[in-house]
């Protein structure tokens, strides 16, 4: 898909998947029941009644085939916190969720801010990554917001882009310089938007629920004022920009206006923000409902869904953020931010947005696959003859309860205990089989 994605060596798939319903609007496929022949890791043929003597035959009848999903925002906690997640477990979780490419954030220990650290990660990905994996480098050394990283060298070493995610770039002047300098790389900056003078210490969305629960509020303006500022800077510099995990209606309005003005901005939204509101925080369970940005109001959720449908938000990103169990087995206020969601992203969005008729399936597929791929210059996965096979088979009728064990090393799943519809039975990523659902007969 790109020379900025890295995957372990694995046998190229030779599969004949028969009778699945194919969904890929980019190829004019809207549920047509066809056979797909994968030979040597590439889609060799799509048609009716295909046969091949050597390929393994997989019965796809009753299943849906979708282009593989792309997640532009995950935390693999490597290097430094491999007990929370490592490249092997994180990419297994991605494969189990139907993802064929993920981009990992650099807020690790140490921060990915130099070519040697990045190089070490790339080597590990070449040994362990079940799905093609890319790595963002930091924007500033140590993500401290003071000194630009060596963007030229990092780009040459294979960085997928630049981000200080987990923290905002507080200085407007520094962000401007970063946008200017990054032009030499052709890579994008992806920004965590938060004014810390408004947001620091916030435990949940500032609103009626926070007022009742007595938790310090994180106001929507903590995000939207920074979004507005950075879109003005990007417009002034005529620089492309990607915005992480948008959560507030006011931010959506700023992005919509900027797009109308011709700013080359792309933006992502997380499944948990599309599916839940701050009402969920009443459980006070830090595993399922404590993250930054926080779950916001019903009005914000409605604005996010509308923006996803109309393309103002062009990507869905999990912000998969593993934490060790003991860090989350504490009172709500003491717990760190972050939830995991790679294994459940598509089923959660399918269950909460597609099944109720809020957003049609082809739009969700676009926002979880081609949308984020285009935002970062990756080849969009497609069900197209000649392409490397990047696809997944889904049983869209299968309802299952989300509970451990997970492929991820961590268990802070935001939809733990939810019953979701849609389960990935097979993922082919970068031309290799990355995941098969094992049904245990009892």
């Amino acid at each position, binding site marked *: 898909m790109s020379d900025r994605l890295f995957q372990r060596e694995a046998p190229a798939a030779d599969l004949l998947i028969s009778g699945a319903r194919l969904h890929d609007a980019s190829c004019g496929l809207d549920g047509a029941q066809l056979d797909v022949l994968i030979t040597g890791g590439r889609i060799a043929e799509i048609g009716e009644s295909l046969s091949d003597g050597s390929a393994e035959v997989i019965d796809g009848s009753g299943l849906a085939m979708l282009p593989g999903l792309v997640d532009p925002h995950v935390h693999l906690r490597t290097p430094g916190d491999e007990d929370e997640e490592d490249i092997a477990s994180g990419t297994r979780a991605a494969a189990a969720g139907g993802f064929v490419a993920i981009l990992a954030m650099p807020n690790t220990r140490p921060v990915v801010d130099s070519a040697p650290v990045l190089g070490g990660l790339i080597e590990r990905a070449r040994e362990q990554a079940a799905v093609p994996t890319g790595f963002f480098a930091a924007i500033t050394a140590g993500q401290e917001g003071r000194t630009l990283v060596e963007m030229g060298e990092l780009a040459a070493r294979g960085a997928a882009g630049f981000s200080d995610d987990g923290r905002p770039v507080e200085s407007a002047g520094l962000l401007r310089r970063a946008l200017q300098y990054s032009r030499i790389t052709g890579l994008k900056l992806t920004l965590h938007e938060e004014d810390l003078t408004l947001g620091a210490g916030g435990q949940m969305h500032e609103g009626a629920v926070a007022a009742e*629960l*007595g938790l310090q509020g994180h106001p929507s303006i903590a995000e939207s004022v920074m979004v507005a500022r950075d879109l003005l800077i990007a417009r002034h510099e005529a620089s492309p920009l990607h915005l992480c995990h948008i959560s507030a209606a006011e931010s959506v309005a700023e992005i919509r206006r900027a797009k109308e003005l011709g700013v080359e901005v792309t933006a992502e939204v997380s499944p948990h923000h599309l599916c839940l509101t701050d009402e969920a925080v009443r459980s006070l369970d830090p595993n399922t409902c404590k993250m930054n940005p926080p779950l916001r109001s019903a009005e914000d959720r409605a604005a996010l869904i509308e923006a996803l449908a109309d393309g103002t938000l062009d990507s869905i990103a999990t912000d998969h953020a593993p934490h060790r169990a003991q860090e989350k087995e*504490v*009172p709500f206020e003491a717990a760190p931010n972050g939830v995991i969601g790679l294994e459940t992203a598509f089923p959660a969005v399918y269950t909460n947005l597609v099944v109720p008729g809020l957003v049609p399936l082809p739009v969700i597929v676009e926002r979880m696959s081609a949308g984020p791929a285009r935002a970062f210059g990756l080849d969009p996965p497609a069900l197209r003859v000649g392409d490397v096979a990047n696809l997944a088979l889904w049983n869209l009728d299968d309802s299952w309860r989300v509970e451990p064990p997970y492929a991820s090393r961590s268990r802070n799943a935001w939809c733990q205990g939810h019953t979701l519809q849609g389960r990935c039975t097979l993922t082919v990523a970068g031309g290799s089989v990355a995941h098969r659902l094992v049904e245990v007969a009892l």
Partner: protein
Amino acid sequence: MELYPPKTPSQRRHLISVTDLARPDVERLLDTAEGFESVMERDVKKVPTLRGRTVMNVFFESSTRTSSSFELAAKRLSADTMSLKASGSSVDKGESLKDTILTLSAYGPDVIVIRHAQAGAPELVTRYTDAHVVNAGDGKHQHPTQSLLDLYTIRRALGHVDGLHVAIVGDILHSRVARSNIQALTLMGARVTLVGPPPLIPRGIEAMGVDVSHDIGAISAADVVYVLRMQRERMLEGANYVPNLREYAALWGVTSDRVRPSQLVMHPGPMNRGVEIAPEVADGVNSKVVDQVRSGLVVRMAVLYDLLTEPSPAGGEAALRVVAAPAGQEVA
């Protein structure tokens, strides 16, 4: 594998939040407390009701009134009590709340009373113990026994709570007492007005069914003026909730010229005399501050009694029951 998996939500009755209570529950608890008044007037202030039961008071945050009254309440009911303060315990060595609770629960307590600086701590405790859990204050979230004792104090003074107008004055933002009391007072039919500086009134609080005013004059219409403590540690220079305590006292201090003789004045303590409440008001005839402390004892006796006496077979463990006031048994 998990050695100590969280329990599925316990079927035991806990008192974590005022929202755990329905109006008949509150009335039953206040009636039970009333029944304990006679015990307070005896020479031997003790009944054998909870003999053999164990009440653990686990306080991770400083407290005078709440911890002493829970301890005394348990003793008056003949329960064994044990108090753990965070300082001097294994908490100082970095022990987690989960491990502290697993450890204490190994001794088989019947009730764990917990105070903690962080919201959500009592919910966590319920996942790792078989004891009934009573929230003695968690972060800025809830302080349900304070609300019960305040309702009790008002009912004793005025005969009823229904239909009263209560003004809660001061730092609503950082006050668990304010949140619990808003819920408790509105549950019992009172009308609540919040009065304070705009930065100390949380956005969206109107959804709890209250009116908001930034003018201290708004307290004049109330039957009860409930004064909250200005938390000095939150009013450090640079916090900018208010410019300083001097201006706060001038604009929102409850002074004698701002209260009428017919109004009750209450304060959960500890008071900052001369800041949120003038000394002559704190010590005046309207003041119910000492009554509140006394109410705390009988109300906490009622809570412990209610949680630990047998549930009715029909209602099951989860149902709250109607109990008669305890008979006047004396310790032999």
